């Protein structure tokens, strides 16, 4: 009897883990709870040590911070609110509230990797769209397959013609409903690991393994590279010159032209949909700013290219001249200081839109 009970319990447990780890909604709800609690079942450290510390688990670079380290001040602006701001962004911007932006009547945030993007434009206001993307994904995202999804999913009428030039992967054209894809979450292994092993009380074991690897084999586990001075972690993909995400992998003129053409297509598309202006905001890889020697110049080359129609939120130049620490040592994201500089640039643009009818 006991044996039977154990077997059925294990079956239910296994199916439960697979279900929970597959479901994006359930995982989202669980992580919201677990990431913020200090209880034994929490995964507090995931949220507070930095995403790369959680890949590397190196005690030496551990730097505790709270999500409240991000301070969102109301901008000093008392003018009109004639702008509707649409942010098509990634993890850099998804925590920024509408109150941080100046003169915004309505703010909509859309995850940049969403498959279905629908914007409800209000023609009585100025509609501004910002495409925010971390530098490491610019070449992949605007140079290739994913672009096809964005334009395809929101394309209408005359713009349909421009879709044909984007490469299609053949498997995608098989007649499967999207709902089947929900059974096959590509992040399932990370989710299972999170559900089974990512508990504050188990971190000691991870740290022991990571320390062993670091001290004996001189390498960090996971996809993380330790800087030469041992004080900063970088995502390996941003350093490996063989990868497109890297700040050091060469960008050919042909590739740059392709990205610009795609950005121009996106620009024309959204302008035709009714947006008053589009802005591109590329957040530099930490290594681009911290170790600029050998940088492939992706951002400045794109920003300075006269063929580019889309307008720019230029944070690269601001960061180059900044005299403060912009990125967290154990995280691929910015410090509050880095974020504030970016918000400031966005607000400059928003104020112009509110104060003038034409903006260059």
């Amino acid at each position, binding site marked *: 009897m006991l044996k039977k009970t154990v077997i059925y319990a294990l079956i239910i447990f*296994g*199916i439960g883990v697979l279900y929970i780890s597959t479901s994006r909604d359930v995982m989202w709800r669980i992580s919201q709870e677990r990431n913020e609690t200090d209880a034994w079942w929490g995964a507090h450290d995931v949220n507070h040590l930095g995403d790369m510390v959680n890949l590397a688990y190196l005690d030496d670079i551990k730097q505790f911070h709270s999500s409240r380290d991000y301070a969102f001040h109301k901008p000093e602006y008392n003018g009109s609110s004639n702008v509707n701001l649409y942010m098509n962004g990634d993890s850099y911007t998804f925590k920024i509230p509408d109150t941080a932006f100046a003169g915004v009547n309505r703010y909509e945030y859309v995850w940049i990797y969403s498959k279905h993007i629908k914007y409800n434009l209000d023609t009585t206001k100025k509609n501004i769209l910002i495409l925010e993307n971390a530098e490491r994904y610019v070449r992949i995202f605007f140079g290739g397959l994913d672009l096809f999804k964005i334009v395809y999913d929101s394309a209408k009428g005359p713009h349909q013609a421009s879709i044909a030039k984007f490469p299609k992967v053949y498997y995608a054209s098989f007649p499967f409903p999207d709902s089947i894809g929900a*059974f096959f979450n590509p992040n399932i292994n990370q989710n*299972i690991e999170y559900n089974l092993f990512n508990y504050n009380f188990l971190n000691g074991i991870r740290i022991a393994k990571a320390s062993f690897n670091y001290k004996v*084999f001189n390498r960090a586990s996971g996809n993380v590279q330790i800087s030469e001075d041992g004080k900063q972690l970088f995502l390996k993909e941003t350093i490996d010159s063989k990868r497109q995400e890297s700040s050091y992998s060469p960008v050919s003129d042909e590739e740059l032209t392709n990205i610009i053409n795609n950005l121009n297509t996106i620009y024309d598309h959204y302008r035709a949909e009714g947006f008053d202006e589009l802005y591109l905001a590329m957040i530099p890889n930490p290594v681009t700013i911290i170790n600029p020697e050998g940088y492939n110049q992706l951002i400045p080359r794109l920003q300075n290219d006269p063929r580019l129609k889309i307008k720019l939120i230029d944070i690269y130049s601001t960061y180059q001249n900044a005299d403060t620490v912009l990125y967290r040592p154990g995280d691929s994201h910015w410090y509050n200081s880095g974020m504030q500089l970016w918000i400031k640039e966005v607000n400059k643009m928003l104020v112009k839109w509110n104060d003038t009818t034409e903006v260059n």
Partner: protein
Amino acid sequence: MLFNSLQFLIFFLVVTLIFFRLRTQRSRIMLLLVASCYFYMSFVYQYILILAFTTIVDYIAGILIEKSEGRKRKAWLIASIIANVGVLVFYKYFNFLVDNINDTLHLFDSSREIPYLNIILPIGLSFHTFQAMSYTIEVYWRKQKAEYHFPTYALYVMFYPQLVAGPIERPQNILPQLQQYKGYDINNIREGISRMLWGYFKKVVIADRLALAVDHIFANSEQTSWVGLCVGGILYSFQIYCDFSGYSDIGIGAARVMNIKLMENFKQPYLAPNITSFWSRWHISLSSWFRDYVYIPLGGNRKGETKRKRNIFVVFLLSGFWHGANWTFGIWGFLHGVLATFLPGKKVAPSKLKFGRNAINILATFCVVALLWIFFRAENIGHAWQYITGIFTLQDGSYNIGINITELWFSFFVIGVMLWREYKLPEHKINSRSKYIVYVSGMIAVLYFFGVFEENQFIYFQF
């Protein structure tokens, strides 16, 4: 769903436990079939349609072949082979063919170019296609009866422990086991689990660790010293062995837990004293497939020395291109063909091998095999040539091999442990319960602390 993923471990636990609770063989077959579909769909779910297509075609072909006589019988077999090879050629070789045609057109200064297709190779296509063809050929030869129960036949093709990277099974071995469940056996469960753990050890402790160095050396071969290049070649030889045989161990072990015995795929290939022995120990299920369905039908060694040599060349060339649509694989197969023809040596069974007496032959065979693996690993022929000339011209350069010296020695140590264990203790049976518990818990600890978990795919998945 990679074998070295948490998803697989949970999936395996659930499927196996349900399998043991079911009472009829039909329900067990349905369970394994659904589980195998889920397993395959977790890679690229759309590609289940391709697998379903070839499975249905071969199922119908098998029945029609059995029911027909004479030319009709042959026609059904040919139709089945065309369907299978057609899918394989389209997905695996179409762009390669286009590439070569375009290169040829450029030679004649033609500006015309045939467009490429943006297709992704379905995972494990070469494996399950060959397994499916094995069934229709055996039915045609009347060595196997057609399977009328569709789920049983579909499971023969799709059985998840060997679906995406073999062993490439034969219907005579698998179908009877699927038709008749032999019952729950604690010894098989223990043996299966310890075999799986051994496979994981080879994959995550050895192969994925060696990959750190191998990837670095091959990516920087122009800047690496000849010593580093030699180390890279040796490490890659063990990486590919531990990666592929580790996968086979996990698959064979997983099937064994359910009391299903899959064929062996490796028998200590690097202890082979000559090239013929090597090929009787390396990827046995593929070598024997080519022997049974290509070499022997071509005449084998029955039609004189010249034709025997021709047949060997054909088999090795096909075997090379089976691995991938790249000239590097073709050259690799061709060179093995040359060796197997002109320096064959006698086949020596692992159990009869005297290690001391054959040490020099074993070492020489390993060196040759390791050298040829460079073609297998290189990006293209130019890269392979640069790598090999770098070794023989004693190229100056960096000694950075992507891992530190401690890890290099540790790698050699675990390789030594692996070779010793497979030579001395090839079986995975542990009779004592306490020893078994110690072994399993020890292995789990070793896997966790010394495993390299970098989401590495198995090398043979790409084939």
